[in-house]
Each structure stands twice: as C-alpha cells, then as structure tokens.
C-alpha cells in the first residue's frame, strides 16, 4: 500500500496557469550575458604581486587559493634575541629595504594554498 501526503482537493479550473512571459526572462538573460562579458574583461582596482592590476578572474582564483595578501602579513620579523651581532646585522640587512606598503590588499596569482579557511 502506498501512503500519500494529505492534501486538499484540487480544482483544476480555478488553478493559476502560471504563464511565463518570454521577454522578461530574455531581458534577464541578455543582462546576464553582458555582465559575463564585462566580468571576463574586467580589470579590478587591486594590484597583483607581479605588478599591474588583477583581472576579476585572478581575484576569484585568489579567493580559493589563499592568494590575497594583506600588509600585516608582510610585517618584518622582530629582531633576533641574544647578543649575536652577525644575526642582528643579517636582520638589519634584510629589513633595510622594508617600507610600509601603500596597498591595502593585493593578489598573488600563483598562490596554491588548498584551503584558506
């Protein structure tokens, strides 16, 4: 025996036929296609590590691969502890070129971190 969900009696004559207008859907498709084309050719305002600005597709790829870089990630390491003058000199040499980045976020198109979250 087959059970069925309880339901009220239907009246086909009174039921909404739900006719669909072609032009509303067609207009939405056209707008979507324009957005796709624009998006595929869209250069964002975000810089890349290599220089230049990132394509929208590069930005999206960076989301999934941990390719977004923020300035706080590039803060230089603190000076080494201890009295080793060689280590201190090495540290100073490494960070002599460091200056606070002017960008807020940039894209590393070559990042391949599997799961950023």
């Amino acid at each position, binding site marked *: *025996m*087959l*059970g*069925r*969900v*309880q*339901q*009220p*009696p*239907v009246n*086909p*004559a009174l*039921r*909404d*036929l*739900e*006719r*669909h*207008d*072609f*032009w*509303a*859907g*067609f207009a*939405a*498709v056209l*707008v*979507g*296609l*324009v*957005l*796709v*084309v*624009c*998006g*595929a050719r*869209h250069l*964002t*305002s*975000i810089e890349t590590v290599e220089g230049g600005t990132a*394509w*929208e*597709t*590069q*930005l*999206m*790829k960076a*989301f*999934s*691969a*941990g390719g*977004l870089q*923020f300035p706080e990630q590039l803060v230089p390491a603190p000076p080494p502890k201890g009295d080793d003058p060689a280590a201190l000199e090495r540290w100073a040499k490494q960070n002599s070129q460091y200056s606070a980045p002017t960008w*807020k*976020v940039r894209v590393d198109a070559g990042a*391949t971190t*599997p*799961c*950023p*979250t």
Partner: protein
Amino acid sequence: MDNLEQKPKEPAAGPPGGPGGCADCGGEAVHGPQSTVHSPQSTVHSPQSTAQGPQSTVQSPQSTVHNQGAPGGCTACGGEGGQSEGKALGRRLLRSRPWVQAGFAGLWLAPVGQWLHGIPGCVFHCYSCPLSALACPVGVLANYAALLPVAPEMPYLLLGVLLVVAAVSGSLACGWACPFGFLQDLLGKLTPRKIALPAWTGHIRYAVLLGLVILLPVVLGYKGIRFDEQTVSICRLCPAGALEAGLPYSVQGLLTGHGWVMSGFKSGLLLAFVAAALFIHRPWCRLFCPLGGLLALFNRVSLFHLRFNPKECVECNLCRSRCSMGVKVDQKVNVSGCIRCLECTTCGAIEPRFATPKG
C-alpha cells in the same frame, strides 16, 4: 506519524501493480490521502477489476476508482493508459535524472586543477575540494563582501553567470546539476520515511544569504578581520566544505601522519548533515542553501518553467505526492521551494516548457 511523509515509489514503465495496474497514477493498487474508498478526496485504483470493464469504475465527486485494465483505460487518469506525450516525457526525464546528476558531478569534480577557479560555477560545490573544477559562487560572494571595506569591487562575472543560469532555467540546476544535492538525494534513498518540514523554513535560506554570506563578512571586514580569519563564516559552517575539502585533507593527513586536520566542530557538522539527510529530504537545500534560494527567486520568470495543463488534470494529486520538497504543486508549481526535479511531471498535467516569443 503526522509529521512523516513517505515518497511514492517511482512508477515503472509498465503497470507495476501487475498486468492490470494503473501506470498513469503511480501504479499502486490503492492510494489516496485517506486510502479509503468513500472518504473525501480519496482515489482508489483497482487493478484487479479488469474483467469487469467500465462498469467497475466508480466515480463520485470526491472519490475515484481507477481501472487501468478497462477497455477505455483508466478513466480517472485520463483513459489513455499512461501513453500521453506529457506523461511519457515526464517518465523519461525522471529515469534520466540520476544519470544527468552523475554526469554533472563528474563535470564539477573533473581533475583539471585550479586553472578554472577564476570562473564561478552555478552550483553549490566547495572550491577547496581537491577535485573542484570551478569556483563556488557562495564562497566567492562572501569573499567579495569581506573585501568591501578594503577594496570595493563588483563581482560582474559572478552576477552574470548566476543571472544567465537563473533567467534561463531557474532552480533547474539544483535538481539536475548540483553535486551536493545529488549526494543528498543518494543519502535520502537509504531511508524511506522522511520528516516533513513546514513551508516557512524555506525562508531561512534568504536569512543565510543576507546574513551569513553578505552582511557578516562585511561587518567583520570593517573590524579588520580578513575572511580567512573570520571564525564564523559561511565557509566554516558549510557542510559541503567539510565533506569535499575537510574530509579529503583529513584523510590525507591521517595517511601522512599529520592526523585529522578538520576541526572537531566541522567534523560534527558533517556528521549532523549526513544524519539529517537520512531523515529530511535535501535538508541543506531546503533549509540553508543561499544559492538555491537565489536561483529559485527566478522560477517565476525563467524561460524554462513548468506549466499546468488543466485538460490533463484528473485530480489524482499525484503531482503533490511525488514532490519531495514539500511544494504544494496542486496550487502553484513555479515557486521558490521548487528545485525543478520534474518529478511532478509524471502525472502528465504539469509539463516542462520553454518560453518562446509566441507564448
């Protein structure tokens, strides 16, 4: 048992109740809301009454006895023995759906590396999965939202892809192309009885879309918390992420001696999701999926749609009984709760259509 629903079995190509079974109405000997011959709205099929012919068909305003074996066919179901074009199309679609779903799952899981991750897909599928081919639209949208305080950008490509898919087919991708939906369908087949959910629960999806996918990343972004550092985010709460990314990397971690890398919370989330999928049909789709909610908003205007044909309707209520998403198909079918699995089209009165300029 009031809150339990049992999905009718898939009608076979021939009369499943035997040589005289009713193929049009689902093929069982007896069915109906009350399963009683003279109760209101009841529908009783009598496959054994073939020899008695049309005389054995009893019809009253509220009750109908189907007799598929009668010379005229089953009077209650249209009298054509299930051979009408709409019904035949519905059955063909129903039989092909698992194969189409499997094909799309193979497409989304194609081992092509990450070079296509710059293109958003139109289904719910974690882009951190080692095999994912395209980017997850929900994850991309949440990332864009989190980036808003730092670098406001408009996701043109994402919006365009979703708009094209939604305007052409509505939520058809949910029922036929979503790998996560396919998985839930498979899990759901393990247990016959399902818990029915009230219709209002479908609105939770929009709360997830607005709150968890858009507003929360923006607010936390303004507080200076990057998306990958946000402890509460759609990606951290997503069961697809736990299944498609957390699980493979955890198994890999076990094999390489790094242990189980997925957090206890996410592991629990995955278990809870699997358990829910056994007893609720497509729990993620019905309750939480922001993408499904977004696509379903276009069900009313999409070019592909479902059309009710009153001439074919015999009030058998098969359309609503077959709907595993709990949509009141007997009232309206192009609604936001529908995933367009097209199961309701097997009754023949609801037909899949593609809108044309001529109407």
